[in-house]
């Protein structure tokens, strides 16, 4: 079964419609478990006290902010190079979701920064590069809107997405390459996680919840885009007849 098996929109819509409620339900369940663990079960941090609980929303959203962009860039590359008919649809559908996660990461980070660092915002390399990521999402969405011709818009947006992909490794390694106020990575690092298992597991459950939520939202948005396309085609056919 090749990648093009699901290129057929009807087949995709049917499958997506079947997966979507399961993904949504699983996300809700994982979120409930994750929040229960993060807000009630997990002990307070030895340094940060209860403020550490912000991490359980902040870190998964920041991971998703980057994951969504990687997804967006890969889908854009597939659309540009292999012209897979669903790829630019997937890219377009993922952008607002990624922007939402990025916004959440920025806001929760700000709320965390004030009590711990003593500042809502600083212009260090990590914070600045994530803000650029947010603007990239907004620019990507604006570009889709600003070009009438759907195919041209898809191409221009895909090029923007690929250029912006260079920002992703900069975000990830900003804390290692330069002096930043933001602390280095706790989970994905060479010496293994620097988080105690009693805090790491709830964090991973939250991360999985966010990921499954992304799948549910993406499928819903892609079905919506397909339906919009169908409506537009029907209208055009009506007008010409």
């Amino acid at each position: 079964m090749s990648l093009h098996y699901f290129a057929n929109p009807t087949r995709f819509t049917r499958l997506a419609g079947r997966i979507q409620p399961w993904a949504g339900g699983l996300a809700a369940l994982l979120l409930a478990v994750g929040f229960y663990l993060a807000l009630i079960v997990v002990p307070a941090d030895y340094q940060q006290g209860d403020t550490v609980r912000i991490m359980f929303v902040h870190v998964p959203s920041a991971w998703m902010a980057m994951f969504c962009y990687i997804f967006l860039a890969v889908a854009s590359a597939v659309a540009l190079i292999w012209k897979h008919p669903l790829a630019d649809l997937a890219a377009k559908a993922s952008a607002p979701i990624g922007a939402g996660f990025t916004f959440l990461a920025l806001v929760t980070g700000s709320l965390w920064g004030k009590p711990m660092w003593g500042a809502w915002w600083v212009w260090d390399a990590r914070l600045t590069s994530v803000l650029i990521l947010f603007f990239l999402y907004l620019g990507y969405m604006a570009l889709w809107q600003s070009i009438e011709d759907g195919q041209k818009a898809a191409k221009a947006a895909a090029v923007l997405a690929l250029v912006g992909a260079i920002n992703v490794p900069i975000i990830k390694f900003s804390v290692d390459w330069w002096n930043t106020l933001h602390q280095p990575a706790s989970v994905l690092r060479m010496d293994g996680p620097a988080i105690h298992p009693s805090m790491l597991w709830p964090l991973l459950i939250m991360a999985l919840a966010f990921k499954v939520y992304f799948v549910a939202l993406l499928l819903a948005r892609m079905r919506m885009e397909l339906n919009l396309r169908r409506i537009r085609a029907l209208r055009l056919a009506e007008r010409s007849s």
Partner: protein
Amino acid sequence: MTRKQRRLYIVGGFMLIFAAAAALVLMAFEENIVFFYSPSELARKSAEQPIPPDRRLRIGGLVEEGSVQRDADGVTITFRVTDKVDVLPVRFRGLLPDLFREGQGIVAEGSLATNGTFVATEVLAKHDETYMPKEVAEALKKAGQWQGKEE
């Protein structure tokens, strides 16, 4: 070569060029991207070229153990910041973040006075990437396995 392959090489080539360009730009602007200088970096910089006292900059490092002193007025505080190589005396008047304590990483914004003291207008706490419950931290300290900084 098929058209797909050609498109793949074009996109890949452009990505490589963009990545190289971004790397060059970031390297050129490294001085401006770093959020703070460590005491030894600052010492090297001021040895190369004296830093004028009106120039605003940020320094960062650990608050040296036993160096924190409060003035009689109760709001002025002096301490030394170290990066285990060099130390820098810092003077600050104002509110400190909760995490400020000896052994803690901090970033201070201000200027370098002519007597070599850093006069800070803002002090931010920098916390590390280690997270653990209080009990675990205490147990580690009791067992002599503590690798972090002293509180």
